[in-house]
């Protein structure tokens, strides 16, 4: 048997739910081959489960005692394909959207998305923050065409539940909150300022303006978006207020050249 065939057989045996007989492995007086192989089979599952539990604390808070079982089902359904064990978490939200019984509770997939956004934001590429003082030099007639460049690592997580409360409870080691469902979809923004990852719920008007800014729309276009939510007289001050907050939060990386 070639080395390649042997490795494939051992791999399949490690992934199998039950320890199969492999004639390529040897028993001895200390332990038989099946119980030796079982160390790798158990180790694979425990390592993945433990690594994923670290990346999905909010989901763990929501699922409680059912969390470990869900992770085991995910690991059994999806062998890991990335050398970094943590990256196996990239498929959890999708799994929760299709796999029974979890797909019947959409909050689970939503919370998995939030946990994963926080995890990937943590070590996303470093980006410089835009110096607000640079905006002071923008002439008044150039403001309508001004286009901001937002940080690449920003992520938006849509949800119909209070999923952020579960993540907060997990991070603060506090009690499991009560799950609430909302009629309207809410949007959570996840971002990193310096080394700290933040998340907050966006008001509907801010979500619209931020979506436009991410697309590279002009300041005038962002104000137009806000006009759908506010009187004409209020849209501009609201946009200025949002811009101040975005700058303070470090969401802005620069401005596009005209």
């Amino acid at each position, binding site marked *: 048997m070639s080395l390649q065939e042997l490795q494939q057989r051992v791999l399949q045996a490690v992934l199998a739910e039950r320890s199969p007989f492999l004639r390529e492995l040897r028993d001895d007086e*200390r332990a038989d081959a099946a119980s030796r192989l079982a160390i790798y089979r158990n180790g694979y599952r425990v390592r993945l489960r433990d690594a994923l539990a670290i990346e999905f604390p909010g989901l763990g808070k929501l699922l409680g005692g059912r969390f470990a079982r869900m992770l085991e089902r995910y690991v059994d359904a999806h062998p890991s394909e990335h050398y970094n064990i943590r990256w196996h978490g990239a498929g959890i939200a999708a799994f929760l959207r299709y796999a029974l019984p979890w797909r019947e509770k959409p909050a689970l997939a939503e919370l998995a998305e939030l946990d994963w956004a926080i995890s990937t934001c943590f070590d996303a590429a470093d980006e410089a923050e835009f110096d607000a003082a640079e905006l002071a030099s923008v002439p008044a007639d150039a403001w309508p065409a001004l286009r901001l460049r937002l940080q690449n690592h920003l992520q938006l997580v849509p949800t119909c539940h209070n999923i952020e409360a579960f993540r907060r409870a997990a991070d603060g080691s506090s009690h499991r909150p009560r799950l609430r469902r909302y009629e309207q979809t809410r949007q959570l923004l996840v971002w990193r300022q310096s080394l700290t990852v933040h998340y907050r719920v966006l008001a509907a008007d801010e979500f619209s303006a931020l979506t436009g800014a991410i697309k590279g729309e002009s300041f005038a276009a962002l104000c137009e978006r806000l006009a759908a939510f506010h009187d004409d007289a209020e849209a501009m001050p609201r946009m200025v207020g949002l811009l101040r907050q975005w700058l303070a939060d470090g969401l802005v990386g620069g401005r596009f050249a005209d």
Partner: protein
Amino acid sequence: MQTTNHPLPYLGYGLGLRVEYYESLLEQPGKVEWLEIVSENYMVAGGRPLVWLDRFRERFPMVMHGVSMSIGSTDPLDEDYLTRLAALARRVQPAWISDHLCWTGVQGINLHDLMPLPYTEEALAHVVDRVRRVQDVLGRRILLENVSSYIHFADAQLTEWQFLAAVAERADCLILLDINNIYVSAHNHGFSPLDYLDGIPAARVQQFHLAGHEDGGPLLIDTHDAPIIDGVWQLYRQALRRYGRVSTMIERDDHMPPLAELLAELNDARSIAEPLLQAAA
């Protein structure tokens, strides 16, 4: 092979850098002389891990220790992985780079474990070729570490130490000898750990690992979650007698004790090694 062949430095007594010790190690480094990082933990785009990495790199000599090269796999070498590893090496400028003599997956699936190879001529030729190619990419000789193992293959033609020694000689790489892994595998497979030490060419041994393990019934399990046991300390003494002064570090990955306990354990290593080495000199 386009590698630099400067003699590698002797670094003394070090620890594995772990998140749990970031702050305490900066505040009270004790007599930690160098650090070993797990390469994959810092093969990221940015953020906190690289900030901490740079902080420690300013203060300590550092080596890079990987767990995912999968040098023995029959899948193609992961070019993306090697590119990222090389990029990290440019940032860290480590004294050396190591990984394990094992395979971690095949068919694109990763088992996240250090799977032992069958010690055959076919596997030997396969690994030697891949080590040479990795060394070409990295532009330096790498260290390969012996792993703890629990299965043995019916068709083995060589002992583990014959296999490791042959890989090192034929591929011109160096050896990271994990003393605990020798102890664990000797127990699990019924060979003499002293035969193992005798079979390894001293000139290739660049680093020692020390660690604790778990007695899991009939077999010992390499868990890195407990203090180093007396049997491993005894084997460390034997290794020092055979190989002389070798950079030594302690790995701890679970049930993390206060840093002071690890520093005391590192001092135990120093207290064992220094009198023995001075007497030998």
